[in-house]
C-alpha cells in the first residue's frame, strides 16, 4: 500500500562475526525424552538502556536430573556492543540459571526503567530483577513466581509473556504450560529399533497460569480466580492483543494437537475462553493443529489484530483474520496462500514484521521437522527458514529463494527474537538451533522503505507501554497500526518497540498512541527513519 517499494527481502547470517557463540544443548541421548524437542527460547531486549538490543538465550540441562551440570548448559546473556558485536556477560550478570529452561519473557515488571527477565522451564522458573550496572538478582521465591501449583506441583512451562491485564499500570505474567511429564515415566513410541518422539496425545494436558503483579515485587497466582486455569490444553506460544477493542488485553495460546485458546479479558479480572466462538480454536475443517509459534498483530492494516499460528507438516500454518464484528475471525490461510505455502513444513517460532518497510508486515518462520521421523516424512529434520512477503494484506508470497545464501541453510531452527540490532531501521532476526549454533540474520534488504520505530514510556501505564496501540497516519491519509508487545513467536521475546515501514514516505502526518488505560496522545508531522520516544502524558 504506501509505496511501490519492491526490494527483495534479504538476510545475511553474521552470528559468528558478531561474536555470538551460543549453542543450544538439549541433552538428547537417544532416549527420546519429550523435553528434548522443545527448547530454544530467546529474547531481544535492552538491559542496559544503551539503545542497542541485547540477547538472552535459554538452554537445556542434563536428563533425567534436569540440572545445569556445567557452563555448556547455562542460559546466556550477550550485551550488544553497539558496533555489530556482542559480548557474553552471563557470569557477571549472574543469569546462568538452573533447571531445564525453555522460554524467556522480558519486560520491566517493576517500572524502574530497567528491563527484567523471566525464564520458564520444565522444572524451574526464574525471575531476574535487573539491578542496573549489568547485574541481576534472582527474585523468584520472594516474588512467588516459582510456578509451583498447589495441586500439580511444578508444571512444564513452554512459553511466558508479560501484559497488564487489569490496566493498573503494572505488568502481570502469563505462563503457558505444556504436558505432564517426568523422565522416569516417558512412554516409548515406535518400534524398539526405530523409536521416535511420542505424539502429545500420550501425555496429559495442563492448565496455564496467570500471576497478578502486586506492585511490590511480589505476585499472586490468580489462575483459578481469573478463570484461566479452567481450560486444560497443551500450551505452546502465547501472544497478547486487545482483539475486540474494549481496552483490555486478551490472550491467545497456541496448543499442540488440541484446540487453541482465546481468553477474552472481561475487564473485571476474569477471562472467558472463546476460541471456538471466535473461530480460532481449530483449522477450518475442525481439526486441531500442532500449534507452536504465534503472533497477534495486524497483517492487513485494518486496525484489528490478526493471528498467525505455525504448525506441523501437513497442518498448514493458520492465519486468522479479525473481522472486527462480534469477536469473529475467519481462517484466511487458504486464500492468502499460506496454507499451501507452509504445508510441507514444521514451524516453530515466527514473527510478523515489515522486513522491507513497504508498509505491510511480512512473515518470518523458523523451521525444522521433528528428528527421527525421516522414514515417515521422506525428508531430513533440518530445514531452511522461510520468509513470506505480505502482498498488500491479501496474500503471502514465499520469497525465501531470494533471501540470500545464508538463508538457505537447513538446521533444527526453534526460537526467534526480532529486533533492529544494528539500528539501521531494518528488522533483524535471531534464531536458535537445536544442538547447534545460534544464527543472527542481519536484514540487508536493498531498497527498503522509510521507517519509524516508536519507543513508549508509560507513566501511569506500565513503563514500556506494553498493550498500547500506535496508529500512524501517512501523508495520503492511509493508516498503519501496531501493538506494543514483547510476546512474539514460540518461547521467545522480541524488542518492545512498535515498528512501521513507511514505504516512500519520509515522514508521517500523525502518530496516535492509545495507552493501556485509555489515554490518547497525538503527535503531528513526525519525521521518519528514526526511533521516536513518546512519554505518556500524566493524567
Amino acid at each position, binding site marked *: 500500500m504506501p509505496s511501490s517499494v519492491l526490494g527483495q527481502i534479504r538476510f545475511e547470517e553474521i552470528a559468528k562475526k558478531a561474536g555470538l557463540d551460543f549453542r543450544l544443548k538439549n541433552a538428547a541421548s537417544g532416549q527420546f525424552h519429550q523435553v528434548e524437542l522443545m527448547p530454544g527460547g530467546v529474547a531481544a531486549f535492552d538491559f542496559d538502556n544503551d539503545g542497542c538490543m541485547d540477547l538472552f538465550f535459554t538452554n537445556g540441562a542434563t536428563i533425567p536430573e534436569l540440572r545445569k551440570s556445567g557452563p555448556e548448559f547455562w542460559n546466556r546473556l550477550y550485551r550488544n556492543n553497539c558496533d555489530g558485536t556482542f559480548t557474553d556477560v552471563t557470569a557477571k550478570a549472574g543469569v546462568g540459571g538452573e533447571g531445564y529452561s525453555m522460554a524467556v519473557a522480558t519486560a520491566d515488571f517493576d517500572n524502574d526503567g530497567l528491563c527484567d527477565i523471566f525464564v520458564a522451564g520444565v522444572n524451574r522458573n526464574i525471575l531476574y530483577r535487573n539491578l542496573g550496572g549489568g547485574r541481576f538478582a534472582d527474585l523468584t521465591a520472594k516474588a512467588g513466581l516459582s510456578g509451583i501449583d498447589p495441586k500439580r506441583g511444578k508444571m512444564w512451562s513452554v512459553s511466558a509473556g508479560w501484559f497488564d491485564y487489569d490496566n493498573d499500570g503494572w505488568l502481570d505474567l502469563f505462563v503457558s504450560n505444556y504436558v505432564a511429564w517426568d523422565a522416569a515415566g516417558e512412554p516409548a513410541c515406535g518400534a524398539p529399533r526405530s523409536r521416535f518422539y511420542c505424539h502429545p496425545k500420550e501425555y496429559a494436558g495442563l492448565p496455564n497460569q496467570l500471576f497478578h503483579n502486586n506492585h511490590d515485587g511480589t505476585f499472586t497466582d490468580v489462575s483459578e480466580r481469573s478463570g484461566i486455569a479452567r481450560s486444560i490444553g497443551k500450551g505452546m506460544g502465547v501472544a497478547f492483543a486487545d482483539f475486540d477493542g474494549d481496552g483490555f488485553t486478551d490472550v491467545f495460546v497456541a496448543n499442540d494437537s488440541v484446540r487453541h485458546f482465546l481468553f477474552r479479558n472481561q475487564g473485571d479480572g476474569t477471562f472467558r475462553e472463546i476460541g471456538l466462538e471466535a473461530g480460532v480454536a481449530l483449522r477450518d475443517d*475442525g481439526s486441531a493443529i500442532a500449534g507452536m509459534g504465534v503472533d497477534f498483530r495486524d497483517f492487513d492494516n485494518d486496525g484489528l489484530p490478526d493471528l498467525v499460528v505455525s504448525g506441523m507438516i501437513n497442518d498448514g500454518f493458520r492465519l486468522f483474520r479479525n473481522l472486527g464484528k462480534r469477536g469473529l475471525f475467519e481462517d484466511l490461510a*487458504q486464500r492468502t496462500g499460506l*496454507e*499451501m505455502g507452509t*504445508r510441507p513444513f514444521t514451524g516453530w517460532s515466527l514473527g510478523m514484521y515489515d522486513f522491507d518497510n513497504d508498509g505491510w508486515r511480512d512473515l518470518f518462520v523458523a523451521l525444522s521437522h521433528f528428528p527421527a521421523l525421516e522414514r515417515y516424512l521422506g525428508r531430513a529434520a533440518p530445514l531452511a527458514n522461510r520468509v513470506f512477503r505480505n502482498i498488500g494484506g491479501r496474500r503471502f508470497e514465499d520469497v525465501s529463494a531470494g533471501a540470500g545464501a545464508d538463508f538457505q541453510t537447513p538446521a533444527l531452527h526453534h526460537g526467534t527474537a526480532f529486533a533492529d540490532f544494528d539500528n539501521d531501521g531494518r528488522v533483524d532476526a535471531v534464531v536458535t538451533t537445536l544442538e547447534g549454533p545460534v544464527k543472527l540474520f542481519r536484514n540487508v534488504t536493498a531498497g527498503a522503505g522509510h521507517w519509524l520505530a516508536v519507543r513508549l514510556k508509560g507513566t501511569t501505564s506500565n513503563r514500556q507501554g506494553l498493550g498500547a496501540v500506535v496508529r500512524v497516519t501517512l501523508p495520503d491519509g492511509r493508516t498503519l497500526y501496531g501493538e506494543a508487545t514483547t510476546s512474539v513467536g514460540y518461547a521467545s521475546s522480541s524488542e518492545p518497540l512498535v515498528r512501521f515501514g513507511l514505504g516512500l514516505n519520509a515522514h508521517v502526518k500523525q502518530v496516535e498512541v492509545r495507552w493501556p488505560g485509555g489515554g490518547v496522545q497525538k503527535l503531528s508531522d513526525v519525521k521518519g527513519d528514526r526511533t521516536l520516544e513518546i512519554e505518556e502524558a500524566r493524567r
Partner: protein
Amino acid sequence: MRRLAILAVLMAHLTAAQASRSPGYAAYERANRLFVAGKYQESFNAVDEALKLDSKLVPALTLKAKLSMAANRYDVAKASLEQAIAADPSSWFAQFLYGFQFYQQNELPAAKQALEKAYRLNPRDARTSLYLGLTRESLGQTQEALKSYREAIHLGEISGQLDTDMLLSGSRLLLRLGEFDECRQWIDRAIKLAPNSRDPHFESARLSMKTADAARAAKQGEIALGLRGDVTDRQVHFLLVQAYRSMGREQDAERHAAAIRALDEREGK
C-alpha cells in the same frame, strides 16, 4: 473408525486374489469366506492352515496381511506381503497392499515406492491411484496428487468402483487450492453417490463457508450431524459454530460450542 476404513479397502479387493490350485487352496477359500463373514479369528486360523500346506500361496499371504492390518498388526502384515511379493513379483494386489500398509503406518516414502510399483503392474485400479494421490499429497507433491485423484475418479467411473473417498480426497485438495468450481462438482457427485453419508455433506458445508454462503453451510452441516461417517462430531459442531455466528444466530452457535466443550470434557481433553 480407522479399522472400518481399512476393512472397506480390503473388502473391495476380495476378488482380486488370483486363483491358484495348490495344496492349501481349499483352506484359503474357507479363510476367505470366514473373512467376508467377519469371523476374523476363524479366518486367521484357516489362513494359517493354508500357509502350512503351501507357504508361497499368494492369496493366502495377502489375506493374512489383510487380517493382520485389521488387527493392527502391521508388522505381521508387512512380513506376509514381503513373502507374497517374493513368491510372485507380478502380483499388483500384493504390491498395493504393501504400499497401503506403509501408508497406514505413515511411512510415506516407502508407501509411494510400493504404490508406484503396484500402479505399473496394474494401472487400471482406482484404489491404487487414490492411495498414490493421498501419499503424494502428504509428501507435498500437490500437482502429482491431484493428477492421481483425477485418475482414481476416472478409473472408478470405468470400473464401477467410484466411491466418496475418491471424490472427497480430491475435493479437499481442490478446496485448499482454491479451485472451488471443480471442488463443488466432486462434492455434489459424492452426495449423489452416498446421500446418507456424513462426509460429503460436511465437505459441502466447508465449501459453502469458503464461498461465504453460511446459510447453505449451516443446512449441510445440520444434515451431516444427523448422519454417520469418518468426520467427527467435533468437526461438524465447529463448522456449525462458524456458520451460525456468521449468520448472527448466536444461540445456535453457542449450542454447538457447548457440544464441543462437552465432548472435550467427556474425553478428558
